[in-house]
């Protein structure tokens, strides 16, 4: 294919073609650490850091190259029109939105992994560079060719790398956070009995995650998916001597197996639906072109959704994620906040056409994905209120934020969802590592109520970075979370003036609620940890630089990454160059999606930003945060060491049997309710509900009950006793005597059963032979 973008990138293609190096380096490091780690002066940590640094540098270079390529084609948008080459229409760049924004197509390099069959003309080994800028409309013919060629092959499976905006973004995130976590870990798990083992697993995890990110076929995706699951299992159970930890590891593993069944079934369905192809490209293109029936896609998407639910901690399969906090904190930051748990979100993005068509996202009002995402973000947020373990607050917050991403993708806000993934990775990693730092100071306790409080004086750096992370998570401008959260809310298409892919009213309400709740529970966590008086026993201390430096870097990132996707109006208002607007969208949104969400088909649009929505959402968050703050302030005034009111109203209302076992615990319920009622929002509501329940509902129920009792009496006396019972008794005794007859048949003797079986078979065969 003769494409401008391809020419442009040819010079830089070394990085694309050798993207396999990025996962290969940590994989190599895993082997080296396993075999030689124990003998090295730093017990293998240096190998891990070196390998991940190298992978990080490669990832950064790839990212910049990618950005440069996109920029180059963006500048060429005037020239980039339809070309005709050899009588074949090929479109150089894909024009989607009204200004003709440019999308980069994936660069796929594949080699045959293994093949079966004796066909000599099997696919040629080596790299096969599929061109840049897959044409929007012209894929029909070219693909017919490729398909035809594929038919000749015997069964073969390819392994390859898929470089496009989405994967480049993840490469950057994974290597960046992994590197920081490696550095952080050298201090955090210092002197651990399985130090080498720990670093080996970190390396393996990094390799597997990168392998999964770069996968070009669904099979490869599954392999990577399972590998990260294994690493997660190994690292949650890092201190397996304690039963809780190994239980948590098992729970994570088993819960994920539930989703994996969905993954396997879904991928199998797609494999057969796409004409026996594992290629993500083929599957996506066929889904876009309507070559796979919508019903099939729907079933496949539902199955894959189960996998997303387990891996990305969506309700109701989220329960393993909070328990996974039993692992070391850096692991929680890397795996259970920033990277592995977003694998589900990543997969949705990777196979977005399947979900988009399968769930009918375009133009809808609600769908499974948006609903599950909404449920998760609200449910996770609520649960975060009642935790006394700082890491668990963050864990439920992660659940909630993952729900946010899924919600966004379910509403068709593709870029928003992935952008939130991107920003969330930084500030949540920052928060987790901050929590680790706090616990490092408080002698490895995460109990906010018993062992913390007033830490801001003792650990200023940690406090500052934690505050930045909190503000970013709560979505306060101009930090990262603000931009991504805002984009998601806009994407719902509910607020006047935003367009979007439909009108997702219920998800929007969920989203707004979550925005408020996030601010509230994070305020609570911050207050309990850093304000008030110190409630622990020993003097806390600031952590050493190997812990604080990653924190500062991550806090910095949490401040700046949001600016990658500023809305156009905002950029114009600040008089910045226009290319700063929606940069992330340009870079990340893949051509695979762009082809299918073409403007002509009018299926996919980007929502328009709305200043008023941003103001309202921020106000909501600030308000919620302020209410909680006020609550604790008053509490502090009563008793400096108190962490909750002792006689809350909630202990009397067992209303919240809403879904989670933790909420069944009176103590936590109490706290949640006091918190909310002090905020003055839910109290009257609950009372009103109670009143309605007691007076109206009960009245109706009683009425119905009385009526039915009298009817029942009548029926019993005249119909049941007389007519029905007579019939029943008769049939009963008939069945009983017949049963006595049959009882002889069931002797428990295998021989007798076998005799009957063979005899019956003989008779049947004879009947078939002679009678038919």
């Amino acid at each position, binding site marked *: 294919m003769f494409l401008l973008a391809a020419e442009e990138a040819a010079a830089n293609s070394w990085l694309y073609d050798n993207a396999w190096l990025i996962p290969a380096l940590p994989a190599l490091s895993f082997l080296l650490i396993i075999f030689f780690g124990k003998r090295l002066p730093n017990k293998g940590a240096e190998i891990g850091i070196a390998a991940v640094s190298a992978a990080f540098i490669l990832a950064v270079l790839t990212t910049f190259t990618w950005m440069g390529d996109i920029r180059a084609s963006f500048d060429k948008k005037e020239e980039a029109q339809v070309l005709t080459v050899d009588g074949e229409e090929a479109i150089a760049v894909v024009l989607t939105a009204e200004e003709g924004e440019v999308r980069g197509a994936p660069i796929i390099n594949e080699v045959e992994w293994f093949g079966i*069959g004796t066909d000599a003309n099997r696919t040629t080994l080596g790299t096969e560079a599929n061109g840049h800028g897959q044409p929007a409309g012209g894929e029909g013919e070219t693909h017919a060719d490729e398909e035809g060629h594929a038919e000749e092959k015997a069964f073969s499976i390819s392994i390859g790398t898929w470089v496009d905006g989405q994967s480049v973004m993840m490469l950057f995130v994974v290597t960046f956070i992994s590197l920081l976590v490696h550095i952080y870990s050298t201090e955090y798990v210092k002197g651990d009995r399985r130090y080498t083992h720990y670093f080996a697993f970190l390396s393996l995890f990094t390799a597997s995650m990168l392998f999964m990110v770069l996968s070009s076929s669904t099979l490869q995706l599954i392999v990577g998916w399972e590998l990260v699951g294994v690493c997660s299992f190994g690292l949650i159970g890092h201190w397996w001597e304690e039963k809780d930890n190994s239980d948590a590891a098992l729970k994570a593993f088993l819960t994920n197996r539930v989703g994996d069944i969905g993954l396997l079934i879904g991928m199998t369905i797609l494999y057969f639906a796409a004409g026996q192809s594992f290629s993500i490209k083929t599957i996506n293109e066929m889904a876009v072109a309507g070559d796979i029936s919508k019903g099939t896609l729907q079933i496949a998407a539902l199955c894959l959704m189960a996998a997303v639910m387990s891996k990305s901690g969506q309700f109701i399969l989220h329960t393993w994620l909070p328990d996974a906090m039993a692992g070391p904190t850096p692991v929680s930051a890397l795996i259970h906040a920033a990277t592995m748990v977003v694998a589900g979100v990543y997969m949705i993005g990777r196979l977005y056409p399947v979900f988009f068509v399968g769930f009918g996202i375009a133009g809808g009002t609600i769908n499974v994905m948006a609903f599950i995402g909404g449920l998760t973000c609200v449910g996770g947020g609520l649960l975060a209120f009642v935790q006394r373990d700082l890491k668990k607050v963050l864990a439920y917050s992660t659940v909630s934020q993952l729900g946010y991403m899924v919600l966004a993708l379910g509403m068709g806000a593709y870029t928003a969802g992935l952008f939130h993934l991107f920003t969330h990775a930084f500030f949540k990693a920052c928060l987790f590592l901050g929590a680790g730092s706090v616990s490092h100071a408080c002698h490895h306790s995460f109990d906010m109520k018993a062992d913390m409080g007033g830490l801001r004086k003792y650990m200023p750096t940690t406090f500052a970075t934690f505050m930045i992370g909190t503000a970013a998570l709560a979505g306060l401008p101009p930090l990262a979370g603000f931009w991504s959260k805002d984009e998601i809310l806009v994407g719902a298409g509910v607020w006047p003036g935003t367009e979007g892919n439909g009108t997702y009213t219920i998800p929007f309400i969920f989203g707004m609620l979550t925005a408020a709740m996030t601010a509230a529970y994070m305020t609570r966590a911050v207050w309990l940890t850093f304000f008030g008086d110190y409630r622990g026993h020993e003097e806390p201390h600031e952590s050493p630089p190997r812990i604080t430096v990653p924190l500062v870097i991550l806090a910095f990132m949490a401040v700046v990454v949001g600016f990658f996707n500023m809305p156009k109006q905002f950029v114009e208002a600040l008089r910045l160059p226009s290319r700063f607007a929606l940069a992330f969208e340009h870079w990340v949104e893949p051509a695979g999606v762009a082809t299918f969400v073409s403007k002509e088909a009018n299926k996919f649009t980007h929502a328009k930003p709305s200043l008023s929505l941003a103001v309202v959402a921020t106000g909501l968050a600030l308000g919620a945060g302020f209410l909680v703050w006020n609550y604790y302030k008053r509490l502090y005034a009563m008793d400096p060491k108190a962490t909750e009111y002792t006689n809350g109203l909630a202990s009397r209302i067992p209303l919240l049997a809403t879904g989670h076992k933790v909420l069944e615990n009176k103590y936590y319920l109490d706290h949640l309710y006091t918190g909310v009622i002090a905020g003055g929002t839910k109290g009257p509501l609950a009372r009103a509900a109670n009143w309605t329940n007691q007076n109206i509902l009960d009245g109706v129920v009683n009425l119905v009950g009385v009526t039915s009792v009298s009817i029942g009496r009548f029926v019993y006396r005249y119909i049941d006793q007389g007519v029905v019972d007579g019939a029943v008794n008769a049939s009963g005794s008939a069945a009983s005597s017949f049963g006595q007859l049959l009882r002889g048949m069931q002797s428990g003797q295998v*021989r007798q059963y076998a005799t009957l079986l063979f*005899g019956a078979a003989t008779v049947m*065969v004879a009947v078939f032979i002679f009678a038919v």
Partner: protein
Amino acid sequence: MMNLVLQTALSDTGNWIANIFFYIIAAVAVVAALKMVTTNNVVHASLYLLVVLSAVAATYVILGAEFAAATQVLVYLGAIMVLLLFGVMLTRAKIGAETDLDYDQRWIGALVATALGAVMMYSLWEGFGDVTMPAEQVPQRTEAVADEIFSTYIVPFEALSVLLLAALIGAVVVARRD
């Protein structure tokens, strides 16, 4: 020697030799099988089964399935029968006749088996009465069998390996003393 049998059996002129061999083998197999189900000593029964299995292996050779024959010997004679003998001996098989090996009403079994046999033979006779085997038979090469297993039947093959693993674990779990 056996390959000579094979070669001659599969050539045009050697048909009658193969036939003679086949009938001898078949007679041995049937007699041994009958003895197996009627003898009143468990070890004798297993040894008769051994004869039947060897005869079946010989039948495979006549049919040109050399690999299947070798597998039959390796798996059945070398493993399954040894296992069975093991089991028999571990469960204290007596030397000499045992009285309680059969049910009293053998005629039911005989009736069912005979009826089944009659029906099967009738249908076979109707279906393949005068169908002859292809005259020009080539022994099926092991290589070709391997190709077949690892291309067309790769999925059943993998499933089978999982089954064997499951059986292994199952057997250990069932027989374990705890």
